[in-house]
């Protein structure tokens, strides 16, 4: 027997000017999800069940970039992806290109538990979701006004924005510096944006 342990994250790279109340909202959600995991562990839930439970909660709250509140594609739609892995026998499941699945992590879990595969994507993943009867929503359920605003800014700046919030007053530090573009695959990030 060992003592249990748990960690959660909501994305790396944060705008140093993120307003205090946004910081507090984020910390409260992290604390709530941690406590959800802790009470499951205290009731002897297994590690694989707890990581799914906690990530479902994070996907459902629009604060972070997953599920509801996901970043938007260049077309203003949502394409979500998730994966899950169970250490003891290295069983795993992953999904990509989801547009209607309310909790992508649970579909990833079903790929692991109910299919002979490890990874299903786009129309194949969506038809697996239908077959499994998971909870589904219209794509606009996942879209928040905040993100519509951020997509507009990203397009105006002609850039792709990484996995963190960009400040409303333009791109500083963690956002993509148009003046000094971040490299991706060895190329200036601006190379990708026009595509």
């Amino acid at each position: 027997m060992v003592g249990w342990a748990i960690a959660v994250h909501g994305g790396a790279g944060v705008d140093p000017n993120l307003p205090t109340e946004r910081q507090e909202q984020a910390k409260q959600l992290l604390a709530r999800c941690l406590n959800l995991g802790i009470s499951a562990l205290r009731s002897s839930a297994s590690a694989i069940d707890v990581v799914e439970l906690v990530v479902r909660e994070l996907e459902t709250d629009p604060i972070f970039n997953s599920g509801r509140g996901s970043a938007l594609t260049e077309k203003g739609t949502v394409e979500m992806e998730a994966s899950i892995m169970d250490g003891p026998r290295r069983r795993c499941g992953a999904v990509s290109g989801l547009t209607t699945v309310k909790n992508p992590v649970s579909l990833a879990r079903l790929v692991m538990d109910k299919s002979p595969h490890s990874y299903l994507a786009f129309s194949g993943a969506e038809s697996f979701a239908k077959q499994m009867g998971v909870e589904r929503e219209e794509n606009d359920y996942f879209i928040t006004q905040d993100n519509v605003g951020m997509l507009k800014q990203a397009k105006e700046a002609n850039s792709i924005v990484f996995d963190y919030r960009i400040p409303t007053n333009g791109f500083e530090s963690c956002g993509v510096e148009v003046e000094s573009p971040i490299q991706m695959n060895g190329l200036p990030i601006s190379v990708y944006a026009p595509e």
Partner: protein
Amino acid sequence: TVGCVVVDSQGRCAAATSTGGLMNKRTGRIGDSPLIGAGTYACDLCGVSCTGEGEAIIRATLAREVAAVMEYKGLGLQEAVDFVIKERLDEGKAGLIAVSNKGEVAYGFNCVGMFRGCATQDGFMEVGIWE
């Protein structure tokens, strides 16, 4: 991106990651989150979930790399996390959270902050954003 890693009281590790990807991304672009071994990995030694610049995490096979340096170099969990963040990301910006089968928890990042929280059975609990 969001993620969770857990080691339970029987020492079993698990990891999960979920994301909407990049704002203004090209449709069809796949990041690290669904790629086992890159954004997510778990084995008998540890569980890892990553977030950040997907392309750099994929190049580094970052999550699996934490388990590999624990297994092959005999590093402890926090040492392994610090090593891969420092040595494997090249210029990429990313962060990760990890647990080990010994009941340890660790995190690391090389950019400005990471939304994270961790707790252990002996009562330790922390929620933070900055360094």
